[in-house]
């Protein structure tokens, strides 16, 4: 199953989003939160994110979803740090909450990496009020 890594400056956002996703996609066991710094403060940490990617990967690859600014930069750095390892990993250009839910549901039904990435990215521009 395609794994998911949730990157936020806030550990609470990443953990909370993981909890929310676990309610909706209960059988997905490869969701890893990588929020904040090691000491719990606000920020993003490329090394932690790269470890989370390793942990989320069961061989089918990993989609990373990030929040703002350095969340994206640290995620790109993390992916680069894993260049020499045999892990298929993609960073989604998607809103983190909606994208994570869509990606988790897609992964749970057995979609491949590209399809899970697309499920997340299809949330871009989604209207909440019709």
């Amino acid at each position: 199953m395609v794994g998911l890594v949730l990157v936020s400056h806030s550990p609470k956002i990443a953990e909370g989003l993981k909890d929310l996703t676990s309610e909706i996609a209960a059988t997905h066991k490869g969701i890893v939160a990588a929020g904040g710094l090691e000491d719990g403060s606000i920020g993003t940490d490329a090394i932690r994110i790269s470890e989370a990617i390793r942990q989320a990967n069961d061989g089918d690859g990993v989609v990373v979803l990030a929040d703002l600014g350095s969340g994206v930069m640290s995620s790109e750095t993390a992916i680069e740090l894993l260049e020499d390892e045999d892990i298929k990993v993609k960073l989604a250009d998607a809103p983190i909450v909606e994208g994570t839910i869509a990606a988790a549901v897609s992964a749970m039904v057995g979609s491949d990496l590209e399809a899970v990435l697309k499920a997340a990215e299809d949330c871009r521009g989604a209207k909440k009020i019709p």
Partner: protein
Amino acid sequence: MSTRVYDCLKSIAEKIIENKDFLTDLDREIGDADHGVNMARGFQAVIEKVDPEDADIGNALKKTGMTLLSTVGGASGPLYGTAYMEAAKVFAGKTEVNGDDFKAAMEAAIAGIQKRGHAEKGEKTMLDALMPATDVLSEKLAGGASLVDALTDACVAANEGIEFTKTIAATKGRASYLGDRSIGHQDPGATSLTMTLETIRDFLKS
């Protein structure tokens, strides 16, 4: 007895930590008021994590980069982290600094920052100090100047770069939300980058 490269990194760390409030105040004007705090936290960790006895400049710079990636927290983490890690590749296995390697390391740092931040010169970022400094360093070295002399002139260019950032609007990062209201303020990243170069200059002179 610690190595020269460790002592130099420690001087940079001390300079950044000393200027924590100044850098944060600059960032309060146009950003999210965390540059000094974040950089000070990162460099405090650098002092603790780099091996004081390993004379391999490449190892020391790589460890510095990895440490900044995981401890700075904001955008400066991946930007400075990548810059140090790219510079580390130039100095892999080396224990001495010469002009050619220093220039190559600055160029590698620029390429790393650009890859990470997708920024060009003139966007009110650290590149507005680093790019002109590298141009001047390169020109002076080509003219036969010593590394210290070339770096001294490069620091003048970096300071002019800081002045230049006051005249332009930010188009990258949080300051870009302010648009033209960012004009008149100097860029915190260009400032910390210039402090770094000045510290290396003073260190090489000593």
